[in-house]
């Protein structure tokens, strides 16, 4: 697996595509700015949402149990999964009991986190992703590169080529409307035929036992309303206490994600319709571990709007796949090390700590500060490359001893020409600073 920096270098090698990717996402960020700045109460909304989430996380157990009781009373089957394996086994059992071999699924980053599609494929069950972007990447056997815009790394030409191969559209046709219609017809067949539909969950309300799924394409509704069995998969952090809280989050979510005033479909699911089975799977998968650490607990406030992706100058220029995790971008970089420190030790370093992420975040997660904390924890866990550990210790020693610092500084200036070498990553595309004859301190002594 390539590290973030290696994968980014490959991405950037196509400068034109990188510029296009950067500009496309910057456009989304600008739309978000516009949608947030027309609300004089925007910062108050962020603060309110942040406090609701803080309160919920502080009482998470109680709210989850309250939700379970209400949902059960509404006729929904509630399942608890400690990790991805349990989650997948629960989902599989429900499908197997029903007897389906093919089903539809709307967007759910949680099922990506659990690699549910691969798991079910091994059991002989085909999952048809019905979000347009997800279907495109699924055809291409790729992972989503963005949690809201899964195929944002692809251009319409790429989609035309993919649909030609998988849906038989005419070669060379890259007309978005035509291609969308082809996908619509293709998916319609699956909606009508599927007896099981899986959806994600944006919010689950403890007060009422209902859950809310937000989509712009209506694909969650098409799947869930036609299927005999609806399985909703959610992380335990998606709970909110009351229906009244929902209004705040729906406003923040759509404006932060795409600059829309409201998501096209915010569908409430209370209870199964006559003859339907409804299941909800509540997943932990490391979330309670994150909750127990005061440094990182706050990351569970995330509502998956991806505003931090769109604003991140690194993400925009490196693409989602460079993060080698289902959730990329700044938020992914603080969530992933909790699942696997070693595999994700590069991610908290894929940032300049510019702080833009923390300031667009609609629920005020201190993302850039958590990146900093993860850096400390990962290095303390011995995950630094050996050269880096030695270099850092040497630097720390030098900077702790003024006489050695002065000697080192003067040697560095005198021989700075040696750094004009291919071995110096700075020098690859940048000149070294011109070394002055005297340091400031040397000048000052003579003043």
């Amino acid at each position: 697996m390539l590290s973030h920096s290696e994968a980014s270098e490959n991405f950037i090698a196509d400068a034109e595509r990188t510029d296009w990717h950067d500009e496309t996402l910057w456009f989304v960020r600008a739309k978000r700015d516009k949608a947030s700045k027309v609300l004089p109460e925007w910062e108050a909304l962020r603060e309110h949402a942040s406090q609701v989430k803080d309160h919920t996380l502080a009482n998470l157990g109680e709210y989850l149990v309250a939700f379970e009781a209400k949902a059960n009373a509404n006729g929904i089957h509630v399942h608890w999964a400690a990790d991805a394996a349990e989650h997948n086994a629960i989902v599989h059992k429900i499908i197997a009991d029903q007897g389906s071999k093919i089903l539809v699924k709307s967007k759910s980053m949680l099922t990506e986190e659990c690699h549910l599609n691969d798991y079910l494929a091994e059991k002989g069950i085909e999952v048809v992703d019905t979000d347009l972007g997800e279907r495109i990447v699924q055809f291409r056997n790729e992972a989503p590169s963005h949690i809201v815009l899964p195929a944002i790394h692809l251009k319409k030409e790429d989609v035309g080529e993919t649909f030609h191969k998988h849906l038989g559209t005419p070669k060379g046709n890259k007309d978005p409307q035509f291609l969308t219609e082809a996908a619509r017809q293709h998916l319609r067949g699956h909606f009508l035929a599927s007896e099981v539909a899986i959806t994600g969950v944006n919010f689950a309300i403890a007060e009422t036992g209902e859950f809310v799924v937000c989509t712009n394409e209506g694909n969650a509704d098409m799947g869930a309303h036609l299927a005999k069995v609806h399985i909703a998969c959610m992380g335990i952090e998606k709970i909110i206490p009351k229906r009244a809280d929902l209004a705040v989050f729906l406003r923040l979510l759509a404006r932060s994600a795409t600059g829309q005033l409201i998501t096209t479909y915010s569908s409430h699911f209370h209870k199964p319709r006559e003859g339907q089975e409804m299941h909800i799977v509540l997943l932990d998968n490391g979330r309670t571990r994150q909750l127990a650490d005061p440094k990182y607990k706050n990351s569970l406030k995330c509502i998956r709007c991806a505003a931090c992706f769109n604003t991140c100058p690194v993400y925009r220029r490196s693409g989602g796949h460079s993060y080698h995790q289902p959730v990329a971008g700044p938020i992914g970089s603080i969530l992933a090390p909790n699942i696997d420190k070693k595999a994700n030790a590069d991610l908290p370093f894929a940032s300049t700590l510019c702080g833009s992420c923390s300031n667009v975040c609609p629920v005020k997660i201190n993302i850039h500060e958590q990146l900093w904390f993860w850096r400390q924890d990962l290095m303390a866990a011995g995950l630094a490359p050996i050269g880096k550990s030695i270099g850092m210790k040497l630097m720390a020693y030098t900077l702790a001893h003024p006489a050695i610092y002065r000697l080192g500084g003067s040697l560095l200036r005198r021989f700075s020409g040696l750094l004009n070498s291919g071995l110096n990553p700075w020098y690859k595309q940048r000149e070294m600073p011109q070394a002055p004859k005297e340091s400031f301190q040397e000048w000052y002594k003579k003043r």
Partner: protein
Amino acid sequence: MRVALFVPCYIDQFYPQVAVASLELLEKLGCEVIVPTDQTCCGQPMANSGFASSTEGCDANFTQNFEGFDYIVGPSGSCVLHLKEHHPSEKIRNSVYEICEFLTDVLKVSALSATFPHRVGLHQSCHGQRGLRLSSMSERNEKPYSKLEDLLSLVNGVEVVMPEREDECCGFGGTFCVTEEAVSVKMGQDRIKEHAANAVDYIVGADTSCLMHMEGILRRQGSKVQVKHIVEILNHA
């Protein structure tokens, strides 16, 4: 007013003119400026690389040099932010100021005898801007303000222009500039492109590290655009 001048290590070694300008400017404004001569570094290079646990000696040296002062002033938003957020001594954390912040909030400078008849593009360094709140930021719904622009408005002849994306990061990012070389350089190139489109003579900012990174790219490109720290302009006769 008695002020200790904090000169970040890389400014001491590679950009002494920034420290000279800081010293002269503070003196012009009536401060008694002391330069502790055994100072080295704020510790940020190690800490941001995940080795905050190794900065004990560096932190102790900083404390030794600066603990006697109520005002510690440095020409680097990033180093100052690091000290404010992470230095173990509360006295140090509460006494350290970025120089534009100090000029604006403590000295309340309302006039300068500086002239700089050039067109300059302002670079908002992230740690100064979002960390120290030297200016408002585009992410938030807040009233626009800028301590840097206010100070530049006191200089005769200078024309300040903002890049299209007015507060995007330049990509320096400490050791990020070498560990994530490709992204770092691309970010820097993109910033420079916007400033060049404004036909500026100089890119100006309050953080020499960002300027060093952009200068490296400008010089490699053979560009005529130069970089200057804001104090060099505020102190320019």
